[in-house]
C-alpha cells in the first residue's frame, strides 16, 4: 500500500523535517537512552511527491510542485510554510536527525489567527469534482476555499500521473486518500505517522460507505459528477464527528482490534446462549454491548464460514450506536452497510437499549431482511425476558474494566495487549485488552499524551520502510516498551525510572497474568446459530441488488 520513497539527495529541508517529526514524541529524551533495534526516524517523512520535485525543496524552481504546494497551502491559509517533501531515508539525514535538538517552538501561533487552524486534526471529504462533503471543523470558508485548494492540489498532481499522497510542513502533516470518487484529506499536527493518518481517513471513508454503500456512491457520481453528496449525508455529520472523536481517544482504531468487556466466562457464555436462542429467519449477527464495549457476538453459522466480522466493521457499528443514543427509549431500525464484509450491500440493524434509562447495555441485531423489524424486535423481547430471569443486567453492571494494579507489577502503569493466538483466531474477531487509564493518566490531557506516545511507538513498530520488533523508549515522564511477536502485539508504559531488565521481567509477569485471565478478558468461544434455510445463499451476496431498487436516482 505504501509506496517506498525514491531515495533522493538529502537536502537540508528534509533533515529538518525528520527532526521536527522526531521532536514531539521524543521531546526531552536523551537520544542515548533510546535503544531501538533500529532507528529510522526519517521513514516518516519519506513520502511520495511528484518526481519533478526532486532536487528542489520548494524554495526555488518555480515549476516544481513543491513550490506549488507551498503556494497553494499558503494561499489557503492552511499553514504558513509548507514545503514539498523529498523522501529521506539516507543514513546521513537520519544521524543528523537523531542529534538535532528538539526543534524550534512551533507555538508562534499568533500568526494563525483563526482558531480552526489550531485544531489538532482537520478532516475534509470532498468529491472529485471538488464539492465539499464533510469538514470536521467546518466553517463555510473552510468548506469553500480550503476544499477548493485541496482539490486543486489533487488534480494538479493527478494530471502528472502522480497521486498526491502527503505533504509535510514543520507543524502539519497533510495526508490525502482517494477512494473512488471521494477524496479525503487530513491536516494534522498530532505528529502521527502518515500511515496512521491514512488509516484514520479510511475509517471515515468506511463510515460514509456504511451509510450509503460503495456501489451507490459510485453510481451517483457516474451519473452526475458534481453531485452534492451532502444532500444524502445531511444529518450524518455527527456520526462522522463522533467517529473522529473515537479515533482520537479509543486505541481500538489504532490497533484495529476490538475491546471487549472483561466478564466471567460463565456469564459471557450464558449471555451468548441467550442470544443464540432468540433467532428469526435472516438474522445474521446478534451483538451485545455494554459500556461501549463488546460483551458477545453470535453469528449465523453460514455467515461465519464465509467471513468473520472485521474489527473495523464493529468499530463503525459501535460508533453508530454511540451517535444514535440521544433518544434512547426507542428501537432503531436502520439500513447499514458493513464495508469490510461487503461494501455494496445493506444489512438492517435493530438497535435497542436493554436498561433504560441508564442505557449502557445495548442489543444490536443484524438482519438481511428489511421488513424484519417486528420479528427482530420480538427476538429482543425474548432476550430481554431471559436476561431478566437470569438477572444478567445487574451482573453486567458489576463488570468493569480492570485496574493495572491487579497485575501486581509495581512499575507498570498501563498496557495494551493484542493477541494473535486466541483459539480459532482465524474465525474470530481480533481483540485487545487494556486496563483503565489511571493516575497519572487521569486528565484528558495526560490521557492524550499517553495515547500519543502509544501512537508514536505504533508508528515505529509498523514503519513501512523499517518495521521494528521491539522498542524501548525512554520518554520524559515514563518509559515505554513495545514488542511485537508472531503471537501478540504489546505496548507497555512504565514509570520513568524502570530499568530495561525490570521492564523485561515485568512483561514476563504481565504475559503470565494475561494468560491466567484470558477467559475473562477475551471472547473465547462464541456460539453460532442457524437461521438461513438455504446456506449457500448467505447474506454475502443476497443483498447485492438492494441499493439499486430504491429509486435514489430520482434524487439526483
Amino acid at each position: 500500500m505504501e509506496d517506498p520513497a525514491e531515495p533522493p539527495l538529502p537536502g537540508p529541508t528534509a533533515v529538518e523535517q525528520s527532526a521536527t517529526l522526531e521532536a514531539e514524541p521524543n521531546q526531552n529524551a536523551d537520544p542515548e537512552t533510546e535503544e531501538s533495534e533500529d532507528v529510522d526516524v526519517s521513514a516518516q517523512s519519506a513520502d511520495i511527491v511528484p518526481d519533478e520535485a526532486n532536487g528542489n525543496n520548494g524554495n526555488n524552481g518555480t515549476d516544481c510542485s513543491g513550490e506549488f504546494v507551498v503556494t497553494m497551502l499558503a494561499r489557503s491559509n492552511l499553514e504558513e510554510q509548507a514545503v514539498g517533501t523529498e523522501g529521506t531515508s539516507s543514513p546521513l539525514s537520519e544521524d543528523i536527525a537523531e542529534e538535532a535538538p528538539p526543534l524550534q517552538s512551533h507555538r508562534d501561533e499568533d500568526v494563525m489567527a483563526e482558531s480552526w487552524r489550531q485544531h489538532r486534526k482537520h478532516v475534509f471529504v470532498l468529491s472529485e469534482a471538488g464539492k465539499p462533503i464533510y469538514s470536521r471543523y467546518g466553517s463555510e470558508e473552510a468548506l469553500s476555499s480550503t476544499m477548493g485548494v485541496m482539490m486543486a492540489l489533487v488534480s494538479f498532481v493527478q494530471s502528472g500521473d502522480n497521486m498526491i499522497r502527503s505533504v509535510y510542513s514543520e507543524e502539519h502533516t497533510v495526508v490525502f486518500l482517494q477512494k473512488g470518487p471521494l477524496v479525503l484529506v487530513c491536516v494534522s499536527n498530532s505528529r502521527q505517522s502518515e500511515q496512521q493518518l491514512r488509516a484514520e481517513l479510511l475509517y471515515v471513508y468506511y463510515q460514509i460507505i456504511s451509510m450509503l454503500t460503495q456501489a451507490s456512491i459510485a453510481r451517483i457520481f457516474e451519473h452526475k459528477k458534481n453531485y452534492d453528496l451532502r444532500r444524502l449525508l445531511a444529518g450524518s455529520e455527527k456520526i462522522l464527528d463522533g467517529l473522529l472523536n473515537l479515533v482520537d481517544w479509543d486505541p481500538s482504531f489504532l490497533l484495529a482490534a476490538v475491546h471487549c468487556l472483561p466478564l466471567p466466562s460463565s456469564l459471557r457464555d450464558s449471555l451468548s446462549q441467550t442470544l443464540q436462542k432468540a433467532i428469526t429467519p435472516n438474522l445474521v449477527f446478534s451483538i451485545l454491548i455494554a459500556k461501549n464495549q463488546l460483551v458477545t457476538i453470535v453469528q449465523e453459522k453460514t455467515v461465519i464460514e464465509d467471513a468473520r466480522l472485521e474489527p473495523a466493521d464493529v468499530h463503525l457499528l459501535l460508533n453508530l450506536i454511540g451517535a444514535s443514543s440521544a433518544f434512547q427509549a426507542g428501537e432503531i431500525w436502520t439500513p447499514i452497510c458493513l464495508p469490510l464484509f461487503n461494501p455494496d450491500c445493506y444489512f438492517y440493524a435493530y438497535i435497542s437499549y436493554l436498561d433504560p434509562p441508564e442505557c449502557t447495555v445495548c442489543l444490536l441485531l443484524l438482519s438481511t431482511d428489511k421488513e424484519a423489524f417486528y420479528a427482530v424486535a420480538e427476538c429482543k423481547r425474548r432476550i430481554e425476558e431471559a436476561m431478566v430471569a437470569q438477572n444478567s443486567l445487574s451482573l453486567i453492571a458489576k463488570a468493569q474494566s480492570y485496574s493495572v494494579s491487579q497485575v501486581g507489577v509495581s512499575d507498570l502503569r498501563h498496557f495494551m495487549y493484542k493477541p494473535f493466538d486466541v483459539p480459532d483466531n482465524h474465525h474470530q474477531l481480533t481483540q485487545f485488552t487494556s486496563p483503565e487509564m489511571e493516575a497519572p493518566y487521569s486528565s484528558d490531557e495526560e490521557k492524550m499524551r499517553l495515547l500519543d506516545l502509544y501512537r508514536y511507538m505504533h508508528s515505529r513498530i509498523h514503519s513501512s520502510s523499517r518495521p521494528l520488533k521491539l522498542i524501548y523508549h525512554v520518554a520524559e515522564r515514563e518509559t515505554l516498551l513495545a514488542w511485537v511477536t508472531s503471537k501478540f502485539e504489546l505496548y507497555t508504559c512504565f514509570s520513568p525510572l524502570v530499568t530495561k531488565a525490570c521492564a523485561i521481567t515485568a512483561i514476563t509477569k504481565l504475559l503470565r497474568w494475561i494468560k491466567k485471565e484470558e477467559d475473562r478478558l477475551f471472547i473465547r468461544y462464541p456460539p453460532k446459530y442457524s437461521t438461513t434455510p438455504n446456506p449457500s445463499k448467505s447474506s454475502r451476496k443476497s443483498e447485492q441488488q438492494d441499493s439499486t431498487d430504491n429509486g435514489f436516482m430520482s434524487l439526483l
Partner: protein
Amino acid sequence: MPEVSKMKKPDVKVVILGDTSVGKTSLLHRYTERKFRDTISTVGGAFYLKQWGPYNISIWDTAGREQFHGLGSMYCRGAAAIILTYDVTNWQSLAEIEERFLSLTDTANNDCIYAIVGNKADLTDPQAQLTVATDGLTDDQGEGGEQRMKLQVPPACPTPPASPASPSSLLKQVGHDEATALYGRILRYKGLDEKSSLPADRMCFETSAKTGYNVDALFETLFDLVLPSILRKRNENQWSPTVDLEDYREANGKRRGCC
C-alpha cells in the same frame, strides 16, 4: 417512554416524515420527554411506543433519507396517521414533502390521516416563543427534578429576526396558506374528497419543538382522530396483553416508567 410499554402490542401506527433537520426528532422528544435538547441525528428509523391512556401508539421517527434507502414504505405500512414535517424558515423543506416523501405514504392505510406541520415557529412567530407549560398532559409523577426550558429565547438574540448572524434564514419562508394548499394537493393525490376529509385548517399546524408551542395539540389531536381506528383494530383482534404484562413487570419491581 416507559419501559413498561415495551412488550405491548401497538394499537395504531403514526409516522413522522420530512426532510432532515426540520425537527422531527425534537418534536417527538418534546412530546414524550417534555424537553428540548440538541438531539443527535436520527439513524434510519426509530420506533417508539407511546402509552396514551389505555392505548399503545407506535410512532416511527425517520431520518429523512428514506427514499434513498428504500425503507420508507416499510415505516409507513399500515400507518393510521402521518405527520409531514417542514421547517417554516426553509421553503425547500416544504417542497421536499411533495417531491420526496409523499410517495412513501402509499403503503399507509386507506383511511390514514395526514397532518402538515411547520416546525421552528419560534424563529418566526413571537407567539410561538412563549414557553408552553409542560404539566397536565403527562401522567408522570416524579418529575420534580425535570428541567424545563426556562426561557426559550437565548439572551444573545432577543428577537430572532434582529439577530445579526443570519437574519435571512429566520424569515418565515412558508406561510400557512402554502401549507393548506399542500394539504389540498395531498388529498387530491390520495384521491380523497376534500369535503368528506378533515379540513386543512384542522390538519395544518405550526409548532415549535423548542418552546413546546402547539406540540401537544398536534399529537393529541392526531391521537384523538385515530381513536376510531384503534377501537376498530381492538375489536378485530381481541388479544390484549396489557394487564398481564403490567403485573409481570410490577412483580419484577425493577422498572419504573420514566415518561
